[in-house]
């Protein structure tokens, strides 16, 4: 069995076999994260640049820890403290970084397609850590890993994703990965937040949160991006919370043992109430924990010898 991807740009390009291999590999890395010495020499001598054009705590820290546990040399660049503020283009910045010969660039950017753009122009491996409203593959893979850990499988699960679907790269990456693996995906949110035609990607669309929750195995809440589009699409946060926020009463519509997930950071009291966010069914911190193992798997797999196909 081989892994033939040089880049991880999205879950859309990944086959069921690829995803299974990533999750199985992550399973082995999880053990390393529980050791006293949390480090293996696998990527010794490799340089990884984390190029983050958007604010991030979780994802950037998670990638950096994953890189360090594999003994790679990690370098962080954040847009606010780099020459981006001096007006350099993405391509120029990336070419300059590439001239220093990194092996992998992990990129987060506000423009959809930024990772793909770099993958076409640079020789090193590119891992997409979130590009605009397009994809966030490592997040979706850690979500699947967490589901598989609790349910033993992905196939046949009903996963309900609720929130601003239009602007959510997490929703899109999950949708591709989950349908590839044979899960049923339901999307729910206000009409202004559901892209028209998305049901063609193989999911069911609901405007009623209650209907979308009925019998679900997994409930995934998305963050309302207050700093972005939130205001113009919503009459008020209070109204949003009433119709699309998850609280204990609504959660009872899902299966009794349904998992509650959130990619973070949470807006408590908006899309999720504290009694659910801290309740017995939440696996939110497990998602974070598993993120390190999944990202180690991605870094390891793209570092192997690859055929020329992307």
């Amino acid at each position, binding site marked *: *069995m*081989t*892994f033939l991807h040089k880049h991880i740009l999205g879950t859309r390009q990944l086959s069921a076999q690829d995803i299974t*291999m990533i999750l*199985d*590999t992550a*399973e*082995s*890395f999880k*053990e*390393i994260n529980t*050791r*006293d*010495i949390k*480090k*293996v*020499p*696998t990527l010794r001598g490799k340089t990884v640049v984390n190029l983050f054009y958007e604010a991030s705590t979780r994802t950037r820290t998670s990638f950096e820890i994953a890189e360090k546990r*594999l003994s790679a040399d990690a370098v962080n660049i954040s847009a606010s403290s780099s020459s981006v503020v001096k007006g350099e283009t993405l391509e120029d910045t990336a070419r300059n970084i590439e001239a220093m010969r990194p092996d992998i660039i992990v990129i987060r950017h506000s423009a959809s397609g930024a990772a793909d753009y770099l993958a076409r122009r640079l020789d090193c491996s590119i891992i997409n850590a979130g590009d605009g409203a397009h994809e966030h593959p490592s997040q979706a893979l850690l979500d699947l890993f967490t589901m598989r850990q609790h349910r033993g499988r992905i196939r046949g699960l009903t996963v309900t994703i609720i929130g601003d679907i239009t602007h959510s790269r997490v929703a899109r990456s999950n949708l591709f990965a989950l349908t590839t693996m044979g899960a049923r995906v339901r999307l729910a949110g206000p009409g202004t937040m559901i892209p028209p035609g998305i049901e063609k990607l193989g999911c069911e669309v609901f405007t009623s949160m209650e209907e979308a929750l009925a019998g679900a195995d997994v409930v995934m809440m998305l963050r309302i991006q207050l700093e972005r589009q939130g205001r113009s699409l919503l009459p008020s946060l209070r109204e949003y919370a009433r119709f699309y926020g998850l609280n204990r009463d609504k959660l009872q519509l899902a299966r009794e043992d349904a998992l509650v997930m959130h990619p973070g950071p949470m807006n408590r009291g908006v899309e999720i109430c504290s009694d659910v966010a801290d309740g017995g069914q939440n696996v939110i911190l497990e998602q974070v924990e598993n993120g390190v193992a999944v990202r180690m798997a991605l870094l*390891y*797999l793209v*570092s*192997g*010898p690859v055929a020329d196909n992307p």
Partner: protein
Amino acid sequence: MSHSETLILDGAAIRRALTRISHEILEKNKGTKDLVLLGIPTGGDYLAAELAAIIAGIEGVEVPYGVLDITLYRDDLSHKTIRPLRKTDLPFSPDDRRVVMVDEVLFTGRTIRAAMDAIMDLGRPRSIQLAVLIDRGHRELPIRPDYVGRNVPTSREEEVHVDFDSNHKPIGVRLIKP
């Protein structure tokens, strides 16, 4: 492609070799105190289980055994196709133990080098010893086994295969000439 195969050891011969190795391990370590077996996949983990069972039959003591995946410690990551990782599973800490690594075929010694690094990351054993079913020569590192089932002179091009049945019992060792 024409190639010839020779059966070097059959199931009974393997059994006798493992029994002798078990006695040698007990003799050298003066019993089972602090003794643990660590099998290197794939194959070495099955042999470690066999040795543990034989030692239990001789001494009446269950010697703990574990699985050590060394893929992440290999020095040839960029040359070989990536293979699925096996989970390292140690039901014990190697601290202050007498660790016997178990592998099926000793060849260049690079796997054993990687295995020693892997063990050192998990703890500080009192000693590390090496048991192999087949030593086929061609060492590239200063590594020698403590216990050998059979020395088999080979050429570099030949391959040595240890076969297991569906219950992970060793049933034969084949030398394959290209």
